[in-house]
């Protein structure tokens, strides 16, 4: 069968099971869009290519499938770069299809030409420039294979206009062999058994779960293992939802804004089992004193993540699901179960937990941002998909929304991309049309991709946006407050922000505002009852800070627990 490149592309996407594409048309991809015109694939038109990329990312993180993004050459392609880098840092499987000028024009500074494979080389897992239509089907299949295997990541495929226009004999490409996947598939069982003995014998063990548990679909296995052996569990920001947030063994998040009890437990434990984590500086604090009393074990699928910034005692390369399944098997084989309850250690952890829980001073005349999130949690019964922007909104969401399941908390952990949350929420809503999807935003972040309101409205994606509107770029303001003598240099944006309610209405969405604490609950109820996109503008306490906080360079056991401690320092 003779087909044009663009027809082959669509056929190959269908072969990969793609049902949704996030994109934006343009000159170099006109032929592909012409094929989409009569294709069953749903295309969600973003209003900026960065929005399309983040939406594909949100679709991938919430569904576990590969997110697909389609944009034109030049500026269309470069606009996706932040979205690609965001996905790369957080190991999100994505395929980005970019148009390119015809092959004979490549390198001539043609109209809308950009060397996008060159530009994205450091922020993709791999990328391809397809120079011959005969290579198209195989390359696209390889791209999907690379994106979802091993440590997942974004893969970009650059498609010159003449390649998608050329006719060739179409032969469906086979599923790529595992040639591209060089992650070891087998775990050293002997080493893992030895590791199990150490875990089993430990007196004060802690598990640190990372995003790898969620990407590796190993949450159930982690739950079984931790509850079986009564081991308290903390997580990185990326690991939220890897372990039930309402379980007594749950310690909350670790690190710079970690809970007192998570940071203390990791600082005092005698064994730290880390699974699917890469020891971000935001997690470890001062590396020399991180888990300094513990024997440390790292299980990760990416060998390059092991001993990269933190030297562990026992490195194990392998996927976390297989590793946890083996650990569970060893636990099953062990006879005596009662002796491992570790009552003293668990009592100590409970004492930290009840002694210094997450707290904020209650609502006075103004709304506390933390209270907004607690109310969202209560009214959604903890069952929403939550996305965040970056900064205070992100940290408060991690503290006060409790995630019992994986793939429910979508946040830019590694790159820290403001403007991520709203388009990611659109992607998640596209994957789960019937679920409640809420973007917890700040008044700064939401303005970075506000144009996507048109996307949500036009595609009937009823995403809810909760703006914690403090009139500041809040996290930067907090640092200026603590470390820069309260000189709020260019972080005071309140006077010049738009009226978010009228802005929502201008886009055809619904806008609601809450000024007083008693308005929080009715506002959220009304938003949840509205089957359309809604902006909730919560005018919150302007100078509220995120605590606990570990100051830069400090050990994670050295926390400032609230702003009152600042004056004493």
């Amino acid at each position, binding site marked *: 069968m003779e087909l044009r490149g663009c027809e082959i592309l669509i056929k190959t996407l269908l072969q990969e099971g793609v049902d949704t594409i996030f994109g934006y048309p343009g000159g170099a991809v006109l032929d592909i869009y012409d094929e989409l015109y009569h294709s069953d694939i749903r295309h969600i038109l973003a209003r900026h290519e960065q929005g399309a990329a983040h939406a594909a990312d949100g679709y991938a993180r919430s569904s576990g499938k590969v997110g697909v993004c389609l944009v034109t050459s030049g500026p269309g392609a470069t606009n996706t770069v932040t979205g690609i880098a965001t996905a790369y840092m957080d190991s999100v499987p994505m395929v980005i299809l970019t148009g390119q000028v015809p092959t004979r024009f490549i390198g001539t500074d043609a109209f809308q030409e950009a060397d996008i494979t060159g530009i994205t*080389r450091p922020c993709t897992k*791999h990328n391809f420039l397809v120079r011959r239509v005969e290579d198209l089907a195989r390359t696209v299949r390889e791209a999907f294979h*690379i994106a979802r295997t091993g440590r997942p990541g974004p893969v970009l495929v650059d498609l010159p206009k003449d390649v998608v226009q050329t006719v060739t004999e179409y032969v469906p490409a086979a599923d790529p062999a595992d040639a591209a996947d060089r992650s070891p598939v087998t775990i050293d069982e002997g080493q893992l058994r030895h590791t199990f003995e150490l875990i089993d014998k430990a007196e004060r063990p802690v598990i640190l779960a990372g995003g790898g548990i969620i990407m590796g679909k190993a949450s159930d296995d982690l739950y079984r293992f931790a509850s079986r052996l009564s081991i308290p569990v903390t997580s990185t920001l990326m690991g939220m939802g890897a372990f039930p947030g309402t379980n007594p063994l749950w310690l909350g998040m670790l690190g710079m804004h970690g809970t007192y009890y998570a940071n203390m437990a990791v600082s005092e434990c005698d064994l730290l089992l880390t699974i699917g984590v890469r020891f971000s500086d935001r997690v470890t604090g001062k590396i020399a004193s991180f888990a300094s009393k513990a024997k440390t074990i790292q299980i990760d699928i990416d060998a*390059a993540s092991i001993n990269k910034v933190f030297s562990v005692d026992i490195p194990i390369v392998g996927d976390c699901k297989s590793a946890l399944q083996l650990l569970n098997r060893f636990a099953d084989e062990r006879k005596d179960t009662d002796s491992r309850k570790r009552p003293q250690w668990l009592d100590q952890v409970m004492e930290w937990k009840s002694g210094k829980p997450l707290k904020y001073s209650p609502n006075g005349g103004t709304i506390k941002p933390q209270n907004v999130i607690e109310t969202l949690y209560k009214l959604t019964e903890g069952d929403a998909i939550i996305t965040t922007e970056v900064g205070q909104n992100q940290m408060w969401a991690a503290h006060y929304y409790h995630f019992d399941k994986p793939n429910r908390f979508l946040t830019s952990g590694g790159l820290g991309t403001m403007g991520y949350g709203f388009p990611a929420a659109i992607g998640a809503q596209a994957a789960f049309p019937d679920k409640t999807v809420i973007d917890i935003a700040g008044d700064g972040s939401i303005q970075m991709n506000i144009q996507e309101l048109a996307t949500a409205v036009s595609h009937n994606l009823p995403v809810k946006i909760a703006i914690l509107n403090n009139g500041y770029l809040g996290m930067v303001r907090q640092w200026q407050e603590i470390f820069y003598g309260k000189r709020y240099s260019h972080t005071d944006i309140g006077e010049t922000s738009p009226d978010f309610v009228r802005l929502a209405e201008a886009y055809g969405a619904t806008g609601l505002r809450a000024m007083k604490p008693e308005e929080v609950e009715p506002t959220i109820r009304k938003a949840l009852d509205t089957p359309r996109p809604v902006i909730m503008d919560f005018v919150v306490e302007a100078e509220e800070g995120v605590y606990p906080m570990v100051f830069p360079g400090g050990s994670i056991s050295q926390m400032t627990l609230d702003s009152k401690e600042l004056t004493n320092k």
Partner: protein
Amino acid sequence: MEVRNHTLTLIVNNKPDVLARIAGTFSGRGFNIENISANITLDPTVTKITIVTRGDTATVIKIKKQLKKLVDVISVTQHENGSSQQREMILFRIETDGTNAREITETAEKAGCSVISRTSEDLVIEWTGTAESADHVITLLSTYSIRDMSRSGIVAL
């Protein structure tokens, strides 16, 4: 840990951007390339690249892990001292003044070089040897007027 040179041989897919990927991995992660050489092998679909990098053992382990992650990198092997043969080539263009051409030729040949081109103004001299002995040859020929010099990267087997 001791900082020294380490020689790595990479077998990679023979694709136009593979060198850029490797060079980008070094620059993006703060590693450095002392010298590099690349050419096709008996199998035209793969290229062999030899890289000399400087660092301590832990750094070299990190470099190897990062290189192995690249999709187009098929293998990475590190050459241990003593178990591999390593050579570098240098070409020198040395000015002659009409009277010293013979002396330069004798000195060079004694040091294992060969003269591969001569004009009334200069000689082009080729030397091949180990990285350790390169400095010695350069010092030796520096007593004459070296107009230009080209060093290959290390090749290793």
